[in-house]
């Protein structure tokens, strides 16, 4: 059971969307994250850099043939922070009862 810990850095809507995608994956391609979240390349790079600076995300650059490929993965610290954040959100909801559960 993960201890609830609200994380302000993760909770920002765009970063929460990115981290949620990464939490369900071993790694995700830059283009997949960009298209799924609906961000421009530069906006996504900025958000990923913020998460990387916090130690939550690892950026990997590689080549497929001659094409550069960038992917991102959650680090162990990022996964722990995400799990704690989800537990904190669940705690807030459960304190209020089932009436606020989304569809």
């Amino acid at each position, binding site marked *: 059971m993960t201890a*609830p*810990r*609200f994380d*302000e850095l993760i*909770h920002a*809507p765009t970063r*929460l*969307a990115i981290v*949620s*995608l990464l*939490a*369900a*994956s*071993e*790694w*995700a*391609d830059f*283009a*997949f994250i960009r298209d*799924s*979240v609906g961000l421009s390349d530069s906006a996504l790079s900025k958000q990923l850099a913020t998460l990387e600076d916090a130690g939550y995300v690892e950026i990997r650059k590689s080549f*497929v043939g001659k094409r550069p490929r960038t992917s991102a993965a959650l680090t162990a610290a990022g996964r722990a922070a*995400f*799990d704690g954040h*989800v537990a*904190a*959100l*669940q*705690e*807030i*909801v459960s*304190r*209020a009862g089932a009436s*606020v*559960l*989304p*569809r």
Partner: protein
Amino acid sequence: MREEMRAEEAAQALAGIRERQEQVINVAVPPARFWWLLATLTVAFAAAVESRRPLVIGVGTALFVAGVLASLAWALRRAMRVQVRNELLGWRGGMLIAGFALLTAGGSIAVGFSLSAAGVPHPATLGNLFGAILLVAGGPLLMRALRRIMLDRSGAAQ
């Protein structure tokens, strides 16, 4: 913890998390037409082999190989975009996949051999047809069950 956060806001955040995780899981789950393609390929291949006519066997084999390669390329292209976390499937998911594979392969072989023993013509085609029906009917059900397992294990379930 941010005490001032409203429960509605937290619930919305959790729903958003689940939605994003569904996006990742949906990439890993093949659509229903995949099962139709697989079923058609196996039945057509068995029928071609049982025709015993070299030209039909040649064309059937070529189509089968082309179909398998096309579906592999499609799966590979999807896999290049994102890799779903391995542990989301869990032992239950693994057992479901193994059980389904055993059921379809074992069922096809058992029906094929039984029909052959009974002297029914085209036993391999009919055996594969049985397996194909299982694939088309059970494949989407299996995917739905796996999708539910992965979502439940993704952590955002409430």
